[in-house]
């Protein structure tokens, strides 16, 4: 449902992505992991048509995101939980999304319940939200149109342990119902318990990919992650 074909991106003279190829199948959760600055966000922005690849192509549901009719009703995205107007209430942010997608207003209440934001919290302005609340709101926004594909950039960032557990359950339910989920993280722990597949990226290159149990190969996944990223970590440069 999501496919990256040899995607490369040069931004201001720097090769941010280098020949990235991988796919996400329906009914699966793919964890996109790598250290900060590895190119995860850039890849997800290219996938959602917000940024352009220098070469190669990224498609979702068989075509470029920007060419889908009303893409957000089929592909839910959370690209940056903090990127909202601070003076707007959480409820208003969801209402704008629901209006754009032509959904009934009742969907806003459903989504608020789903992500565990109370009616009272939803009436507070976004500027006063904790990072965890922003993430919940952003996940709710992504789920507004009941998408078949979910693209989440660092969704666990700022969530408390309870929130992370809640999110795992949510993503598991979604993939069980046939959704394809792609989520990025710089923390392996957040991903390995929920993902079926892992794509590891460092300095713009895919370092390893495969099923979670295969990648481990007896050793812990973390060891693999650390070894693969050690040579590309900024501290090692």
């Amino acid at each position, binding site marked *: 449902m999501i496919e990256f074909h040899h995607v490369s991106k040069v931004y201001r003279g720097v090769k941010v992505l280098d020949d990235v190829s991988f796919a996400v199948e329906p009914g699966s959760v793919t964890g996109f992991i790598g250290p900060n600055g590895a190119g995860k966000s850039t890849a997800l922005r290219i996938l959602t048509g917000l940024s352009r690849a220098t070469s190669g192509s990224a498609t979702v549901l068989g075509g470029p995101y920007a060419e889908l009719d*009303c893409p957000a009703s089929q592909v839910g995205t959370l690209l940056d939980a903090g990127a909202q107007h601070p*003076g707007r209430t959480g409820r*208003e942010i969801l209402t704008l999304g629901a209006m*754009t997608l032509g959904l009934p207003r009742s969907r806003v209440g459903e989504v608020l*319940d789903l992500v565990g934001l109370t009616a009272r919290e939803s009436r507070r302005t976004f500027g006063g939200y904790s990072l965890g609340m922003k993430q919940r709101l952003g996940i709710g926004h992504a789920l507004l149109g009941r998408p078949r594909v979910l693209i989440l950039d660092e969704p666990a960032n700022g969530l408390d342990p309870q929130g992370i557990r809640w999110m795992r*359950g949510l993503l598991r*339910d979604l993939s069980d119902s046939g959704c394809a989920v792609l989520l990025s993280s710089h923390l392996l722990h957040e991903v390995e318990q929920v993902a079926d597949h892992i794509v590891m990226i460092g300095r713009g290159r895919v370092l390893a990919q495969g099923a979670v149990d295969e990648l481990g190969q007896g050793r812990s996944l973390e060891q693999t992650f650390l070894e693969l990223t050690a040579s590309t970590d900024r501290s090692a440069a």
Partner: protein
Amino acid sequence: MTETVTPKTVGMATSETVAPETTGVSTDDTATDDVDTIGPKTADVHRAPAPIPFHRLLAVETRKLFDTRSGKIMTGTLVALTLASVIGRGVVSGPQLHALVGAAGIGFGTLLPVLGILTVTGEWSHRTALTTFALEPRRRRVLAAKCLPPLITAVFASLFAMLVAVPVTAVVAGVQGVPATWEIDPLALLGWTGTGVLVVAEGLAVGTLLLNAPVAIVICLSTPVLWSVVRGLGTTGEVLAEWFDLNTTTDALMSGAMTGGDAARLAVSMIFWIVIPMTAGVVRTVRKEVT
């Protein structure tokens, strides 16, 4: 737990009964209760998702103008300033309807272009472009939906000023015991309204080009001063101002008596301040990397 659990029942079990090593799906209750509200729609619904109609984008962008604190303050200020300037002018220069309507233009000339600038730059200063363009990747349509509400607001603001000026004229006439002057020049009022719309369009165009609210506001609000400097430079300066200063070229429009030459000068200044920056701004926005 001895029996095998299907994914569906795993979620219903409490977390203690699920063996952690067999599954990463131990969940709390909230997530699984809501499969109905999170699951994808049926295939039928997905087959033909309709593109977002323009009227919906327009409704959303109009709502965004007024749903933040700054938007509400802006609207309140516009209303208060209109009332204050119309009443103030009435008290000072007597019950003359036409003059009273025109008095509202002082506030409009500054606030309306700022409203336009903030509308088109706001998505970038708050990084909401990320959400907006993910919902509707056809950025030209979003821009069009963004530009219309401030332009319509300019028309409504003019109508509001006229509506307020009538009772104020009557009251001032009654209080001061002077006969009211009700004569208005419909063409001049139309030109005045049109000028308000053009000034907003200038703000939208400069804002879209620069995508930086403070710089765009300074440019739009300081041009009258800059042009008076240019005009002082001699004949060449005067000719330049005559053709390129939107404030000068709209004078004829506001007087309600335009000649062919006036129309040509207005057109040239509109191309310079509205068409060119807007075209360049649209190209810039469509190509821009959203980060």
